[in-house]
Every structure is written in C-alpha cells, then in structure tokens.
C-alpha cells in the first residue's frame, strides 16, 4: 500500500462524495424553511436525469440541455411541494413523510414505464480520458463534477445570504409565524425552497449520470447515502454536508479496498447509527433549544 494508491482510492471515492453532498444539500434546503424533507429526492435526481437524456436525444446540445434539465428539476420540486408537502403542512400533520415517499414511488413507476428499466449511457462533451495529478488518476469529468457541485451550492448560498428573497428563507427558517407577521409569505418561501431543492437534484442527476449511467434505480442508491450524509452533518449546516460527503465517499472506497468490496455500503450506515446515537443534531448542527 503506497501513499499514492491510498490517495487514489480516497480521491476516487471523495469525488462520488460530492454527489452525495449535493443530494443531501437538497434535503437541507427544504428542511430550513419547512422542517420537511423530500424522501423522494432520489427519484427527482433520476427523473431529471432521464428528462435531460431525452432532451439530448431530441437533438439539444449539451449546454442547452443543462438549463432545460434544471428547469424540469425545479418544476418537479414544486410539484412535490404542491401535491404533497403543502397539503400536510396546512393540516399541521406529519403526512408529508408518507406523501413524499408515495410521490417518489409514483415517479419511479412512471419512469420505468416511460423510459424502461435499462441503464443507459449519458453523453457528455467533457472528456473522460484520465489525467495524472501527483500520481493520482482523475478524469476531467470527475473534476467537473466537483466544480459543478461546489458552484451550484455556492450560488444558492449566495442567493440565500445576499438577496432579500434569501433573507426571507432565513426568516421563515427561524420563526415562521413571526416572518408571516413581517409580511413574508411562508408558503411562497417553502415553494421556493422546494424549487431550489429540485434544481439541485437535477444538477446532481446531470453530473452523476455520465459516471453511473441513467436507470430507474440510480436514485435509490444515492438517496440512502445522501440521507446518511445529511443526518451526520446536521440538517442545517450548509457546507457541513460537503465535508461529510467527501469523507463518506473516501471511506467507502477505502473500506472496499481494505475490508472487501462486499462491505462498501457499511460505512454510511455505521456513521448514520453513530450520529443518531451520539449526536442527533449532527456534527455541524446547532443544538436546538425549545422553549415551551
């Protein structure tokens, strides 16, 4: 085991970790405004990827397909909010958990029927021929995944911190009723957060598909790990997910090397259990003080 090999494994895994982080970030966006998360987030990733593939097959060049795919992702996010989450929130029930799972299942069945059950290649103009960085092979494509994830997260964070609409996010997040009294529409803000969450799912789908291929089951594999990342990092820590995502990705790769490829999925679950047992608010989460 040379240091270079170790680095190779860690880097390869960590690059996948960026995608976990982005999906986990989608959870955080909606949690911030409405204390809800979309359990069908993986299916949004998958459906956006399939729609983007269809756009490509329809003859759209890559750089036009991307905004199209993002728009579809945002619309899907809004659909989840309108058809599931809002109904439950209006009744102050926890029904959004089941509703978001059901909508996810519906997306899954629909895409099996529309696009079939096969894994399909996803074309990209970015070359996949590897380059050597300090002895570690990475493909330009993998680097573009890292850049893409950080860019979209950075943009959304800038929007949240720097614009008035973004401030509304924070306000609703801190106190929904007080925000309403200040003239901020909580419903609109929740809608916006679901739209952004869907958008980030679409980015994840478009970025990860050339590596993993597109298939109906691609979402379910991602979402479990993203969930672990979100919980371990804490549901309200913006860039904590990136750190934990990278860590989990690298850990998976190293586990399958040192312990055996059958144990690949283990680190995510172990981390999840540990976090829930030891620090339920997450490593980077703030502990919540509830005044009754």
């Amino acid at each position, binding site marked *: *085991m*040379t240091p270079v*090999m170790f680095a*190779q*494994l860690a880097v*390869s*895994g960590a690059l*996948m970790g960026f995608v976990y982080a982005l999906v986990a970030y989608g959870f955080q966006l909606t949690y911030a405004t409405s204390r809800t998360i979309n359990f069908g987030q993986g299916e949004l990733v998958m459906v956006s990827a399939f729609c983007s593939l269809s756009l490509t097959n329809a003859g759209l060049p890559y750089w036009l397909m991307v905004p199209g795919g993002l728009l579809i992702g945002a619309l899907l996010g809004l659909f989840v909010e309108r058809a599931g989450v809002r109904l439950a929130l209006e009744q102050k029930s926890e029904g959004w958990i089941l509703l978001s799972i059901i909508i996810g299942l519906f997306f899954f069945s629909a895409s099996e029927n529309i696009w*079939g*059950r*096969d*894994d*399909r*290649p996803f074309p990209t103009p970015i070359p*996949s*021929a*590897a380059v*050597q960085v300090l002895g570690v*092979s*990475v*493909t330009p494509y993998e680097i573009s995944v890292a850049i893409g994830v950080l860019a979209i997260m950075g943009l959304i964070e800038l929007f949240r911190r720097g614009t008035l609409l973004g401030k509304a996010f924070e306000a609703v997040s801190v106190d929904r009723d007080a925000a309403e009294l200040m003239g901020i529409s909580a419903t609109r803000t929740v809608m916006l957060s679901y739209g952004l969450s869907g958008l980030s799912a679409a980015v994840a789908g478009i970025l990860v598909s050339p*590596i*993993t*291929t597109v298939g109906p*089951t691609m979402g379910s*594999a991602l979402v479990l790990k993203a969930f672990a990342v979100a919980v371990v990092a804490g549901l309200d820590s913006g860039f904590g997910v990136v750190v934990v995502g990278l860590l989990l990705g690298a850990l*998976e*790769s*190293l586990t*399958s*090397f040192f312990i055996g*490829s*059958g144990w*690949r999925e283990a680190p995510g679950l172990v981390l999840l259990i540990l976090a829930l047992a030891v620090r339920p608010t997450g490593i980077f989460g703030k502990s919540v003080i509830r005044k009754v």
Partner: protein
Amino acid sequence: MKKAILISLMSILIAAGVAAADSIKIAITGPFSGGSAPMGVSMRDGAKLAIAEINGAGGVQVGDRKIKFEIIERDDEAKNERGALIAQELASMSDLSGVIGTVNTGVALAGDRYLQEKGVTKIITPAAGSATMTQWVTAGVTDLSMFRFAAPDGIQSAMVVEEAINRNLTKVAIIHDSTNYGVSGRDDLLNQIKAQGSKLQVVAVEKFNIGDKDMTAQLVRAKSAGAQAILIWGIGPELAAVANGMAKLGMKEPLIGGWTLSMSNFLDNAGASGDGTLMPQTFIEEPITPRARKFIEAYHAAYNVPRIPSPVSAAQGYDAVLLFAAAVKQAGSTDTRKIKEALEDLKDPVHGVIATWQKPFNKWDPANELTHEAFHRAQVVMGMVKGGRVVFGNDADRQRLMKEGQ
C-alpha cells in the same frame, strides 16, 4: 336433462383438447428488462424471427398436416424468484410443447427443476453457467428434459485461460460479480488455470455487486499485485464500469472474459474504453456466409435496429427454434416427451445460422452433461471489441467459418 348438460360439457372439453393440438405451444422466457435485457430481448427476437419464417411457410410438418407455432412470452426480469414462479406456471400447462430461453444461471437453477419434474422439454439458451447442466449430474437424474444450446462456461473459461497463456502472460487477476454466474465463472477459471498446467499465477481475486459503478478499489488491488491481464466474469453494465475504471487508472492490460463482454450495454457504456476486450463468441455479426447475411439483414429489418443488441443470443435463439422445429417434425407430434426423444437423436442435419447441426444432442448420460450440450470448442471463436462492435479476434477463425459456410 343433467345428463345432456354433462355430455355437452364433455364434448366441449374434448373439442378444446383437439383444438389445442392445432398449434405447437412454445414458451420463450428470459429477462426482457434490466441489465440482462440485451441478451433476453435478442434471444427472444431471434427465436421469433425463426418462428415467423416457419409459420410463414405454413408451419411444421407433423404427420400429414402442417402446424404453426404459438408463442407464450414470460419476462423473468433476471430474478431467481420470478423465474421459479414462471417455471411453475409453465410446468402446470398440460399442452405445452416446450420452452426456449433463460439467460441467467441463477434463474435456471431456481426454476428448471419444476419443468424437469413434469418432463417439459426445454432448450436453455443463452445461459452459460456450468451449474445449469452439472446440477443434473450431481442430482443423478436418469432422464433429463433439459438441453443446453450455448457455449458452456467450461469451454469459455478454457478459451480465456488459453488466450492469456498464448499471450505469454504469467500473472493475472480474476474479477467477478457476486451472482451465481460470476462465482461459478471464477471457479471455472481457477480450475482451468490448474488444468492447463498452472502457467498463470492468480495475483488477485476480486468481486463486485450488481449495480456497483466504482471499481477503483478492485482495480487498484489488481494493479498493485502486478496483474498483466484482468480475467472477468459478470454482465454488461458492471463490466463497462470495470473497463471505464481501467481506462481511468491508465491500465492497458487486456480485459478477457465471458461472452457477456459482447452485450450492447457493455459496448455502449464502455465506449472507447472497451476497445480490445476479448471474449468467446458463438456468432459474430459479420455477414461472412450467405446464411449469416440473410439472418443479420432479416433481424435489422424486423426490429429496425442498426446492430443486434446481443448477436450471440439472437443467433442462438434462432437456431434453437430450428432445432426444436426439426425435433417436432421428426417426432411427428407436439407432445413434449416425444420431442425430447427426437432432440436426443436428430436424424437430419439442421442448417442453422451458427453452424450446420449434425446430431447436436445425444441420449442423456447421467455421468456426462456434455450429452445434452450442443456446443463444442470448434463452434466457439474469440471475439474482440473494435469501435463499439464485436469483430473476429482471430482472422483464422473468420476464414475457417467462411469456408465452412460455403
């Protein structure tokens, strides 16, 4: 009054029984969706092409009349439990003449015993796992209704090991998937390396699961152990992940493995990374003989594709139907047991697209599964991926087949 009803009911039943013999009921089963679908769909479509040709000519001559084929299709989704359910359903049909299909070794292992219990004749194609047939030897079955029409993994692994030795390699890594197919492939490879004089040193044995996309860990292990070639047993999408991983790590070692390396979902997902990959093939989509040309053109036209998703499966599905039809004709019956006896002793040569089949099967010998295996070393060639298609890996094979096909 009651008697009259009873009599009329019985006459309906008898009439129904007679009506059933108006067609040769044949079931085609396989995965028509999922990662194995290119094989299942091609096998089905190849078989249907042969059936359409036979039905178009009026059907099979049975005694003094011609009978057409009637197809029952079942998608097992490459899932063992689905395969077992389908086999039970088919075994319960009293007027079924036979079954053609099964792609996945695990599905064959889960379902075939139900068909065997009822004595339903089945031609297994293109499942290649050794256990598919050796299970009957282990069980000591004396009268077997299962026939295999695919290059068994025993032959394929022998060719893979041979190829590595011919290239003067000494160190190899074995990578396989964790299904029945992959595990039995690994065992075949290890046995073959021993059988061929232990000239290859196995420096790493690694596995992966269905759905895995990141093969870095397995490949880094193989690379750091000094492997000069990767011998591999798995199916399309994961094989592509291995080829892409090798390209990423800059591994130029040859990738040699089972015939599944010719599946369209390997070729498409691996792209340029797949070039140079070697695998045993029973049929190569090159119109080198008149019969091959006719078949390839008919397939492209019938299903409107520029390339057969899995040419091996399609050709085997096609030839399997021809053999089955020849057996029906010789038996002079649609009874599945009589068809089995005819298959064990086919008198006339069958002109297939892969080869001209002279008595492909023999009477079942409980000690030797080769009696129900149609393919031998001579009918299998090495294929190589080149520009997203599979071509002959060895020009001598091409020349030989061209000569034989004249």
